[in-house]
């Protein structure tokens, strides 16, 4: 960061910068030395920033037309869809934007898991990231309640009822959350308020996330510490800017297909039925991005333990830097971890699928096995693997394997797997 002092060339610039070093900051951001071997999995940080800004801008516009009242919310959404100029576009971007946001964040998280980006010295970045992820889930859940359809209402009922599992004070907490004795207008208005607030909290945390990132610098596919700046790095601008921009455009094409050609496919049909406390839908299912955790919740027979399991499944990620005992970051040099990594990916996908199915028979059994494996991965496999695994030799610098200067056969092989 303080590798070189920056001085603005103009007098005015210098005057301003001495008082508020915004220009120094801008200079730092453009010059920021970035490993040159970052692959496309690294572009999702920028994509996520785009998602957040998109959600905030479309959300603000929607809030100008939306009415947070149990009797008018559903109607006001239809008003947006029909009579507000391009209201349908803004709402579909916002609704599908939430899904795209989660798609991107899952890729971002799993990239981190593969390349060991959560390890020292990047633990704080990782923990801030987990907090952002938790806030995202809260924001998404409350946002889904706002249209006041059947899934909104019953989803809110199911999720808030989870708090009743807390011994002694549970019931009281639920009443307090609802602002009454059932999910009703007070619940809707407070959810709206919080849904409006959380994105700005996330924005603040994103700033901290990036700040914390800029102290040690980016991890990279080889997972080694690199000298910055050096021949292993490129300045953020224009190299990373254009690469992130290119990936973002590809992402936007997929995003646009959803918005323009399948805008309702990720939502549930029941949410186009206005909320009715007297009629329970046949299956209450959360949005796809919460399904793995929903499966964990349901696979534990006891309500309290189910909630504990679900929360632990997320919070366990926060202590991941200390559960993973391996000194090697990148899975490229960890042949065993690489296999367990892909098993974990499959495990989470299976959990997601089971979360969408009714909790009975074979589905329930598979969900239980998958839940057990999820915890096994983090609590047993990862700590043990660090001691037992025979890792591959790690190159000394990025340039070395890339330029093929390695005399070592194993390293030459590594080069191939990195290039992939």
């Amino acid at each position: 960061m303080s590798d070189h002092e920056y001085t603005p060339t103009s007098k005015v610039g210098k005057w301003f910068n001495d008082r508020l070093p915004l220009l120094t900051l801008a200079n730092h951001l453009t010059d920021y030395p970035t490993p040159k071997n970052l692959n496309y999995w690294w572009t999702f940080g920028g994509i996520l920033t785009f998602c957040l800004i998109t959600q905030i801008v479309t959300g603000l516009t929607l809030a100008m037309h939306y009415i947070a009242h149990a009797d008018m919310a559903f109607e006001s959404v239809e008003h947006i869809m029909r009579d507000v100029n391009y209201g349908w576009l803004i709402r579909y971007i916002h609704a599908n934007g939430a899904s795209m946001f989660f798609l991107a964040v899952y890729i971002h998280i799993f990239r981190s898991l593969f390349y060991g980006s959560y390890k020292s010295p990047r633990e704080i970045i990782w923990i801030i990231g987990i907090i952002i992820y938790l806030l995202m889930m809260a924001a998404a859940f409350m946002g889904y309640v706002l249209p006041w359809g059947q899934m909104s209402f019953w989803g809110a009922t199911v999720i808030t009822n989870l708090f009743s599992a807390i011994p002694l004070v549970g019931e009281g907490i639920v009443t307090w959350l609802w602002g009454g004795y059932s999910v009703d207008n007070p619940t809707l208005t407070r959810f709206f308020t919080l849904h409006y607030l959380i994105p700005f909290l996330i924005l603040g945390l994103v700033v901290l996330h990036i700040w914390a990132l800029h102290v040690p610098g980016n991890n990279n596919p080889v997972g080694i510490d690199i000298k910055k700046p050096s021949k292993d790095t490129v300045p953020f601008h224009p190299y990373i800017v254009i690469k992130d921009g290119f990936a973002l455009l590809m992402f936007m094409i997929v995003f646009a297909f959803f918005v323009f050609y399948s805008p309702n496919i990720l939502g549930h049909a029941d949410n186009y039925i206005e909320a009715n406390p007297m009629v329970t839908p046949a299956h209450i299912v959360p949005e796809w991005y919460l399904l793995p955790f929903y499966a964990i919740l349901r696979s534990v027979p006891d309500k309290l333990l189910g909630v504990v399991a679900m929360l632990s499944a997320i919070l366990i990620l926060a202590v991941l830097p200390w559960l993973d005992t391996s000194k090697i970051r990148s899975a490229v040099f960890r042949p065993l971890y690489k296999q367990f990594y892909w098993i974990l990916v499959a495990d989470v996908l299976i959990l997601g699928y089971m979360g969408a199915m009714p909790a009975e028979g074979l589905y329930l059994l598979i969900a239980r096995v998958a839940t057990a494996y999820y915890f096994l991965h983090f609590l047993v496999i990862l700590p043990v693997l660090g001691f037992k695994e025979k890792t591959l030799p790690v190159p000394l610098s990025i340039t070395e394997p890339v330029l093929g200067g390695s005399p070592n056969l194993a390293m030459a092989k590594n080069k191939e797997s990195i290039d992939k």
Partner: protein
Amino acid sequence: MKNFIKLFSILVLFFFTVTQSQSAEKVDYLKTDWSFKGLFGKFDRGSLQRGYQVYTEVCASCHSMKYLSYRNLGEKGGPEFSEAEVKAIAASFEVTDGPNADGEMFDRPAKLSDKFVMPYENVKAAQAANGGAYPPDMSVLVKARGGGVDYIYSLLQGYEDAPTGMTLDEGVHYNKYMYGNKIRMSAPLSDDLIEYGDGTKATVEQMSKDVTTFLMWAAEPHLESRHQMGFKAIVYLIILTILVYFSMKKIWSRVESEV
């Protein structure tokens, strides 16, 4: 680049899995060609106008459509009745307005800005008149059912005699596409039930298709502009992506690394 292709295929795969998973859970619905599907999908104007006729002459006696206004019938991308026709349609309905200067409510013919007149005063009245079952509002009905248009289209033609061994309560009918196969609504359509203004033969199949098309428009009045804008947006994005790709290649050619 390999990495990148992997990544992009994951995104595309994600799109198709969700698109497919939606259709995978479908029962075998009756199939028909919907003009509004696909990249350039548009409504069949004639079908929309006939569909409105089916709605207003058959469905509207029980089903409300409370989020639509008469003016919508003349708007672009909809049935596109002429202004005179829409005014005549609106004027054929009575609405209660007021209070007037004397503080009294009064009836007057509907105007373009009025919402579709509801068949019942409220949900309770609707239930009372229909043996306890509430005929759902049709404004977004197509989007509120898992199978969408195919489901509605099939349901309208799905009335059959109940299989032997199945007992139906008084006022309950058998429909092979209904969830649980039991439906309160009696078969609403029969051949030549109405007479189409444009001379099309009013078979059950034809009426089902027309009214379903109309319901699709009612639920998604901006579908046509969505498709048009979507195509432009995606073409624009693709061209921009290609340009950015070559710029990126050029910029990265300055360093010894691959993108």
